[in-house]
């Protein structure tokens, strides 16, 4: 009896040797974590195939548990979130050491996403707004977070908040990318299925740096709307127009990032009359999402008169935030000048152009 019991207890040994999976969030909203659960009952397949060793949002593991692991002990780490403070950086470096395969999961880790929009301002401006000026702030003493404070005789330490938000691959070596804000559930499952297939059947790994769970074209290629020759006379913000349900949104003057965004999402937003915002990041064979969009837009604005062009362009209220909503950490020009700001002119020198 005791022998068989022993045998039984040793039986789960192969189960314990399951590949280890870690999920972590740095500077992110948590949407990517929810997206993992959006694969619904297939999460049971994940649990069956992987031993989940770290997932702060759902399971009670601590950082010291990861620290105690051997280097490379974790088979796969899905890392979501941008890097914007010392703690994010520490965890990124720790998980890079412990994981064989590190995946930048979701737009924040891939390209900075919404957190990186603060690269269009400065740390000081961010703090001013959050801790002093925003209407909902009640901070009469003007308290700001400090790296070191004494609270009731104890030293309290907070991670240092960075001036510039970084993508994961600007901090550590990244093996694969899964774009999207958040990555679509069917794509997440496709990625996990591929990984399981690789682990079980010994299929070769895709080349390093591959973008997984996304297409090789642009959102326009999978958008169901009908496109005609584009001629834009006026830009509309989504609340200013009731769009035609079948016509291309950009044709109708709605700033849709489809032409400068990788496909893979099934064009979900344009399908329901919302313009693409660009969350799947820059398309293959391009280096800068914003530059691609500028190029595309400039080609379809229907005017040859510089002044009229400027009037039309006034309809784009937030160029940097529209063109780089999800990719500012990776933008060619980097962050906004803060050390030595130049005095920007209210209007570009049009007379000079007209000459």
């Amino acid at each position, binding site marked *: 009896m005791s022998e068989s019991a022993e045998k039984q207890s040793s039986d789960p040994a192969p189960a314990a040797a399951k590949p280890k999976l870690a999920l972590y969030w740095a500077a992110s909203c948590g949407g990517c974590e929810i997206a993992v659960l959006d694969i619904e009952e297939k999460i049971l397949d994940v649990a069956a195939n992987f031993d989940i060793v770290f997932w702060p949002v759902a399971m009670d593991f601590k950082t010291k548990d990861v620290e105690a692991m051997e280097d490379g002990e974790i088979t796969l780490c899905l890392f979501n979130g941008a890097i914007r403070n010392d703690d994010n950086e520490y965890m990124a470096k720790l998980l890079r050491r412990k994981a064989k395969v590190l995946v930048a999961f979701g737009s924040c880790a891939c390209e900075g996403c919404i957190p990186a929009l603060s690269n*269009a301002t400065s740390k000081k401006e961010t703090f001013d707004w959050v801790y002093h000026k925003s209407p909902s702030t009640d901070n009469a003493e003007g308290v700001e977070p400090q790296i070191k404070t004494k609270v009731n005789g104890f030293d309290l330490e907070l991670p240092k908040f960075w001036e*510039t938000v970084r993508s994961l691959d600007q901090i550590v070596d990244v093996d694969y990318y899964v774009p999207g804000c958040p990555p679509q559930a069917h794509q997440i499952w496709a990625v996990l299925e591929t990984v399981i297939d690789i682990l079980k059947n010994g299929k070769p790994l895709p080349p390093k740096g591959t973008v997984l769970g996304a297409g090789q074209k642009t959102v326009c290629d999978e958008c169901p709307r009908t496109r005609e020759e584009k001629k834009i006379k006026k830009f509309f913000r989504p609340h200013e127009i009731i769009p035609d349900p079948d016509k291309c949104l950009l044709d109708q003057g709605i700033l849709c990032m489809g032409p400068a965004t990788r496909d893979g999402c099934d064009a979900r937003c344009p399908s329901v009359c919302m313009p693409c915002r660009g969350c799947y990041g820059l398309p293959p064979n*391009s*280096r*800068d999402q*914003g*530059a*691609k969009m*500028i*190029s595309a*837009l*400039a*080609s379809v*604005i229907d*005017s*040859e008169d*510089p002044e009229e*062009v*400027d009037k039309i*362009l006034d309809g*784009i209220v*937030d*160029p*940097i*935030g529209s*063109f780089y909503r999800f990719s500012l950490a990776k*933008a*060619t*020009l*980097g*962050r*906004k*000048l*803060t*050390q*030595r*700001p*130049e*005095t*920007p*002119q209210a209007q*570009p*020198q049009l007379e*000079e*152009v007209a*000459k």
Partner: protein
Amino acid sequence: MTTVTTSAPKTETSAGAASDKDTAWKPKIVAFLCNWCSYTGADLAGVSRLKWSPYVRVIRVMCSGRMDPTFVLEAFRKGADGVIVSGCHPGDCHYVEGNYKAMRRVHLIRRLLIDYGVDPRRLKLTWVSASEGDIWAEVTNEMAETIKSLGPLRLEK
């Protein structure tokens, strides 16, 4: 070695006056010129021995409409303090409407530069025809002055 020794006294003679000048910051301006008008115009400026700014580095593209916004941003990123885009005069484009596309791109990129806190005068758009060597000289000299007054562009990466 001999060239070094012979050239050494030469630099020394001017060293007293020029040492400041040599170490002083000099603007870097990248110019994208269309093959059919502006490049030929710049060539004419050279052939005519006109004096034009030595700070301008010329890159020939087939059409100003070929100038991808990525080129401009990449130039700034890699150390350019200013960028000139020059094409055929409106209506004269060899490819019918490439220069209009360039114009619209420049207008839009300027708006992006403003958001970045970069002075939009760092990006200049001009029309220079094949016969306007003198205008090319003027454009480059003016641009060099503008950039000198703005100082170096120190992007934060």
